[in-house]
């Protein structure tokens, strides 16, 4: 991937489109990196999901910068950001908003909830009750909110960045598989390297660098970029490759539950965005391979064999990728 900005095909306008995508994405990446240091892979996935109009699930232990990442993203892109701290007593209406009756006017007025924003940060989503979780997840899938029989569309871009602690920690409700499926990708931030942590002491010691993070783009531009990403070419061989890969999760004996067709769509969309991030107007196997684990792993349910062999879903996906031949010459 070291030659990410090289491109050899030519696509006329499409190539210009992806060049623009890459340029903007680089700006955003640089901006976020002033806050989150030493996590290029996480940033890349985050930007990919943003451009693919997906939702991101960040799963990690507390204090590694999950929230900071989401906030930084919101600041770098000059758009509305809402944050919801999920707690066990949070109600669905706390997310979607409620209609309040105005006696003087004699009508209901809708008070939009925090979900009406371009980037919604759902902190510790697995602490909320399943009912509340599903309210959010419905918004994620439909990109609209239905309250009192009225449907309100959400402004684009709409991206939910949910964080959750590992499910084996106390006081959490694990997301059901069906709901995990709606997240395009799941990443782990992980602990920073010792050097990054040292730097962090310096930069975060006195004041939050977040305050100095100036927006480098805006919602309108992101919408435009998302539109452009749709035109990235996926060769027939590559489509087949993605389908084969997703299919392999369904037939793998180690897995109780494979990836859904939605996973296929997500994977293709993410691959497009990934290619565009590198300034390429066509998808290559490396895009899919780089995204397979983040996009697929959280949707899978390991079977008893995997448990016995202590194989995580990530490892299983990596093995499947390593066994699948890449599409050859046309």
């Amino acid at each position, binding site marked *: 991937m070291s030659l990410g900005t090289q491109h*050899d095909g*030519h696509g006329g306008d499409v190539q210009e489109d992806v060049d623009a995508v890459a340029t903007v994405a680089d700006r955003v990446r640089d901006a976020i990196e002033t806050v989150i240091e030493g996590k290029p892979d996480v940033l890349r996935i985050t930007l990919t999901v943003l451009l693919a109009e997906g939702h991101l699930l960040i799963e990690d232990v507390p204090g590694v910068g999950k929230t900071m990442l989401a906030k930084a993203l919101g600041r770098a892109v000059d758009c509305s950001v809402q944050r919801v701290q999920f707690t066990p007593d949070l109600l669905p209406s706390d997310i979607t908003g409620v209609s309040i009756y105005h006696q003087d006017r004699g009508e209901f007025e809708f008070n939009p909830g925090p979900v009406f924003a371009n980037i919604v940060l759902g902190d510790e989503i697995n602490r909320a009750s399943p009912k509340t979780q599903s309210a959010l997840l419905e918004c994620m899938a439909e990109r609209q909110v239905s309250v009192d029989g009225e449907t309100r569309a959400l402004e684009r871009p709409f991206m939910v960045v949910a964080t959750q602690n590992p499910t084996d920690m106390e006081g959490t409700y694990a997301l059901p598989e069906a709901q995990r499926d709606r997240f395009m990708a799941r990443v782990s931030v992980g602990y920073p390297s010792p050097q990054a942590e040292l730097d962090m002491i310096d930069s975060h010691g006195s004041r939050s660098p977040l305050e100095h993070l100036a927006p480098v783009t805006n919602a309108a531009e992101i919408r435009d970029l998302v539109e452009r990403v749709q035109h990235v070419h996926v060769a027939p061989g590559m489509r087949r490759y993605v389908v084969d890969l997703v299919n392999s999760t369904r037939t793998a004996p180690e897995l109780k539950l494979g990836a859904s067709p939605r996973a296929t769509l997500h994977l293709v969309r993410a691959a497009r965005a990934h290619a565009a991030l590198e300034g390429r107007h066509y998808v*290559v196997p490396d895009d899919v*391979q780089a995204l397979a684990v983040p996009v697929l792993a959280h949707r899978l349910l390991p079977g008893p064999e995997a448990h016995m062999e202590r194989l995580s879903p990530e490892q299983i996906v990596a093995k499947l990728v390593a066994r699948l031949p890449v599409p050859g010459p046309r």
Partner: protein
Amino acid sequence: MPLAALVTMLASLSLLSGLVRGDTWWVPAAVLMTVVALVSAAYRSLVGGAFAVPFLQLFAVLLLYAPLFSPETTVLGFLPTLDTLDHTGALFVEGLHTVNTNTPAVSPTPGLIVIIAMVFMVFTMTADFLAVTARCPGMVGGLLLSLLAVPLFVDDAGVSWGPAAITAIGFLALLAVDMWVRSHEWGTRVSTRRGPGTPPDGVLGRVGLAAVSVVAVVLALLLPQALPSLRTDALYTLAEGGIVANDSVTTTHPMVSLRRDLGADSDRTVLTYRTDDEEPEYLRTFALDEFDGENWTMTPVHAGRDSGVDGTLPTPPGLAFAPDEDELVTTRISLDSDTPPMDFLPLPYPARSVEIAGDWYVDESSLMVFTTETPPSGYNFVVTSAENRPGARELDTAGPPRSLTDDRLHLPQDLDERVQELTGTLVEGADSDYESALALQEFFIGGDFTYDLSPPPVPEGTDPLTHFLFEDRIGYCEQYAGAMAVMARQAGIPARVAVGYTAGKPSGEDRWTVTASDAHAWPELYFEGSGWVRFEPTPADPDGGQGTASRPDYSSGVDELPDDVAPEPNTEDEPEADESPEEGPSTAPESSEAPDEESGAATDGWDETSAVSGGQGPPGWPAAFLVGLLVLSAAALPALIRALVRRARRSAVTAGGPAAAHTAWREVRDTCLDLGMDWDLTESPRSTAARLAAVGEKGLGQETEGALWRLALAEEAARYAPDPRPVQGLQGDLGTVVAALAGSVTSGRRWRAVLLPRSLAPWRRPRIEADPVPGLL
């Protein structure tokens, strides 16, 4: 360039113009050379590369060979058959015979033409390789030198100026074309640096260059003079065949030396000697005791510890009484220092002792004295010999040859019956072997024979012996001696041909001088009790014969007994240079093709063991050669196929087009497979490039890595992009990468990659792992 090499080699054909008669002998050679060069040129320009060129050239020659040289043996007019093989063998034998038995200029027999054509074809291929493939056109000069040596060695006239100049011009043309091509190649690049070979600018530079050139030329001329080991006579030694190891002695054909001396018609002094004998014997150098149907040859002699000369020589075979010590004749022989070194001594027969420095050996049955070392060119020695001059009566009453151990009566089965009839007629009425011998000798002296040092060529297909006896009856001592020896054997008298010198002319008191024109050959006949006895069928007339020949008393009077006449052959000597055991056929030599002549001569005596050296040999050798060639070709087949595939791919890559990237990448893949590296179908081009870039201890280097990435990304775009754009420079990148990959492994693996390319084996190719995902693929 291939065409320039062709022109050069064609020009060198003119070197043989003085050696071969006729106008058309060079045509087949020129045709083959042209074809070879055209194949090279066509392949190089159309396909590119050089690896397959020799194979294609050989193939083309194979196709052309049969129609050119033995059309009657072919199938469909061009397919060679087994008969072609036999015919080829026969042609070579004939050609070598021509080379060995004629003096220049020889008439172009088909065999000779084949040999010339083959030699020049091989030389042209070599020149093509040197000049084009190896880009060392200067080395073609070596080939031309060896060709130049042919006329130098076989023809006393040397090389005339014309052909030498033509050859030189051809060579210079080749060099000029090479320079032009090189400058053309470099000219397309803009370079501020001066390439090698560009003359320095400025007056000073030019003067310096000229000075260096002059110094180089002067040094080249002077240095050899300063080195004693490079005297010209050393070249002579080379030319005439030196000594071969294994105690077996080789030399050039004695008859070749004989012919050269006689042909030179010079008065160059070969040796002088002092003797108290008033009628000195001939000085004999060689005894040729085997007749193969055309040539008299010498049974190989061997130098062993037992056969060293330590003064006294073995007793001459066949003598009834040991020679009386008092009757020994002492001869002090001084070889002239201008004479080429002789490794066989010219001695009077029968010599009894020899005093000479160095390691010399004697052959017991023939009393030839020889050395295995290269003797100095001028030396002195003292020889004592018996006076073996039997009376006519002794000879007349000699019994059957009991004490002769070797079979000296053997003759080939396929001799012309007319010879036997003639012999029968001549000896009819003879009461003894002696009378038979006299009758035979008289037949030559008194008959209708004409002595001529340059007899007309023997028509092809004709046996030289029968031609001499029944057709033209023109010849010189070689023919006389050979024919009489054959007929003597037919008459039941053991016989052999001696080669050496006559006694020469007296040059003062006790002193005799032998010149090159005294070279001679004569028959020796065996009589029990008297041993080997010299006869003289050659006319002794200074105008129409060997002027210094003499007829022994016993053989001059047909009548009674000339008492104390001394018959017997004895002395002679020969100024020639070496000789040796092996060869032996008689007849003159020289032909146009030196390499062939030498190798041919060598094989004559050697047939079985030395077939490789190229000459005739039994017709089986071409078969062995072809089988070897086939085996080699089969072994080289994988490499050839792989090279052709690579060649085709490279040109496809050069041609560009959408598939160029695929082709280039496929070549990278196959190179990896050949070199034993992994190739994973689940790897994308990028991952593969990243992996390969780390191959070897230090990786491939930045430049190669860049080339590798360009190839990988081009392949990636060709595979996955909607509208892949042709990429320039893939050809160069491919070359860089392939070379770097090959350089990253051990030489053993490299060789295996060349000889047994794994990429050609379908079962060694990477395959999709069996059912990676059940039911999926």
